[in-house]
């Protein structure tokens, strides 16, 4: 037996999965409280000892880890035009596994600079202007950021004609600064991989230590990566396949967490109907979006605000829940984010499921593209913004609020197209799978060494609903 230990340092729990590579099976799982305030190794050792007790030995071939502890990788990004470089900056940061708290466009204002100070990001991604294009915004924003009295790193991925000067301004302001290729070197052309790599390198070089993870980094056999990046890589592997093991093809995945909801699509988003053309930038095959205002505990209040913006009465009616119970559940979750709708709180199970369903609906709407009809002398045409995901064959649901719900299918249904979604390009008839063993992040880690085993484990452990 060749056992790999795969650890996910979460904000609350340190989860350790033990995998036997030869048989491609999960052989043990344990979790302990994350002990980042004292020594993160304490929680890790507790979980590891439990694994050793379960399998009867401590002979581990490799130990790999991902982390979203201590707030995860918190980022803000900025660009020039909202639908162009600002959007590209957000896509780049999200695909690197960051929690993108906010994306700014145009010249940063004093109020926004104060907001960035309050956000206290780990990294800011500064973009704007295509190569040879607008220089003003990058230089202005570099000056604003240089003056923010906080210690965070800045990655410049904007107009290359202004990048060196912007870097100098930031360095003079005492900011650790990295310059990489423009996220949009030519008009409408995305180039997010260099920025993604720069974020990963900074995470490894600086953030791991800043988050108090250097102690566990020493005992790992590879660099610790952000947990969403591990999930991203698991989804990519699951879609594309590896080493003769076929993947599932085009798919989507949702990770419904306490603070954020992450959506992933591994699909060619080009138009699937005739007479359609893409408006704006062509989004990448592998895409992640992260919603900081959609979550089941820390962001439950923000999620409720979003629901209230829509038709709140329809929300209570559709899920058969009362306004009183919703208010009470919000209070209970705010007081104790670790709470589960079980035992004495079981009567709030329907409310929790209703929130989970709405969380997926909102995240899906923000992730998928949409179509608009345009009438031209050449007949009816469709102007498509974002990705067409109608043909995605699978949607995978992950996170306790989905997999532990009494009726996960009802929650997951919101990830597929329904007439009320109007012109949204969501999957039409996907097969719904649940990550019941919560193994996505662990398999993302494993995929770096044994992609075939990781793929087999995912395919075998997901449960259709």
């Amino acid at each position, binding site marked *: 037996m060749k056992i790999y230990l795969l650890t996910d340092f979460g904000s609350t729990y340190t989860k350790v999965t033990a995998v036997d590579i030869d048989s491609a099976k999960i052989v043990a799982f344990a979790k302990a409280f994350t002990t980042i305030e004292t020594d993160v190794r304490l929680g890790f050792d507790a979980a590891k000892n439990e694994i050793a007790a379960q399998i009867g030995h401590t002979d581990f071939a490799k130990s790999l880890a991902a982390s979203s502890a201590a707030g995860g990788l918190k980022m803000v990004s900025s660009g020039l035009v909202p639908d162009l*470089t600002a959007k590209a900056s957000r896509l780049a940061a999200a695909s690197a596994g960051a929690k993108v708290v906010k994306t700014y466009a145009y010249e940063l204002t004093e109020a926004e600079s104060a907001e960035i100070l309050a956000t206290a990001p780990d990294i800011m991604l500064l973009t704007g202007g295509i190569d040879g294009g607008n220089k003003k915004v990058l230089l202005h924003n570099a000056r604003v950021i240089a003056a923010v009295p906080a210690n965070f790193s800045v990655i410049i991925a904007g107009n290359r004609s202004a990048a060196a000067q912007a870097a100098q301004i930031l360095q003079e302001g005492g900011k650790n600064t990295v310059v990489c290729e423009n996220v949009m070197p030519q008009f409408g052309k995305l180039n997010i991989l260099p920025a993604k790599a720069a974020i990963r390198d900074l995470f490894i070089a600086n953030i791991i230590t800043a988050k108090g993870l250097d102690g566990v980094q020493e005992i790992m056999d590879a660099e610790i990566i952000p947990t969403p990046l591990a999930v991203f890589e698991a989804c990519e592997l699951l879609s594309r396949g590896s080493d003769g093991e076929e993947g599932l093809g085009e798919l989507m995945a949702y990770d419904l967490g306490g603070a954020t909801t992450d959506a992933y699509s591994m699909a060619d988003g080009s138009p699937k109907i005739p007479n359609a053309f893409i408006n704006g930038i062509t989004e990448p095959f592998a895409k992640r979006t992260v919603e900081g205002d959609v979550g089941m505990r820390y962001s439950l209040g923000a999620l409720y605000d979003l629901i209230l913006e829509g038709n709140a009465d329809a929300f209570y009616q559709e899920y058969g829940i009362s306004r009183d119970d919703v208010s009470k559940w919000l209070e209970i979750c705010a007081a104790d984010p670790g709470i589960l709708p079980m035992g004495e709180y079981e009567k709030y199970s329907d409310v929790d499921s209703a929130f989970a369903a709405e969380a997926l609906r909102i995240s899906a709407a923000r992730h998928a593209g949409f179509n608009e009809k345009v009438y031209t002398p050449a007949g009816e045409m469709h102007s498509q913004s974002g990705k067409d995901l109608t043909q995605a064959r699978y949607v995978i649901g992950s996170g306790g609020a989905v997999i532990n719900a009494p009726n996960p299918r009802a929650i997951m249904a919101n990830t597929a197209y329904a007439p009320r979604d109007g012109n949204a390009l969501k999957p039409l008839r996907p097969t719904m799978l649940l990550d019941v063993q919560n193994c996505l992040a662990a398999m993302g880690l494993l995929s770096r060494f044994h992609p075939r085993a990781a793929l087999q484990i995912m395919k075998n452990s997901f449960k259709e609903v």
Partner: protein
Amino acid sequence: MAEIGKIEDVAIVAPAYDEEEDVITLVLGVIGADVHAVGNKILNYTLTKAGFNVINLGVMVSQKEFVEAAIESDANAIIVSSMYGHGEIDCKGLREKCDEAGLYDILMYVGGNLVVGKQDFAQVEKVFLEMGFNRVYPPGTDPLVAIEHLRQDLAPS
């Protein structure tokens, strides 16, 4: 119509694109719900050959796309084509949107079948000049005319 053969006569004044030089950047496109692609391809070809850095948005381009492309690329001019007769409706407000976006000095040229039917071109030109365009061209204008105007209008003073 301009003869396609004439394209070869266009002088190459600069390598295709080098941001270190003071290259002139143009945003080119066919406005509105207009799908006439041939003229757009000819303009893209001739303008690029003439040494301009052309951001070609192709057909069916909204005012918003023209403005946003001009912002990101720090363009010197917006070159609008309209072939299907709805030019007046489609172009109205473009200058104001540029002003709003801070593109105060940007040149705006427009050409094509700008209105329906056989109307007096002087009248058509007046309408589009009042709309804030700097140059207005009737159908069949040789692209070289516009290239010459661009060089004049953007010559360092």
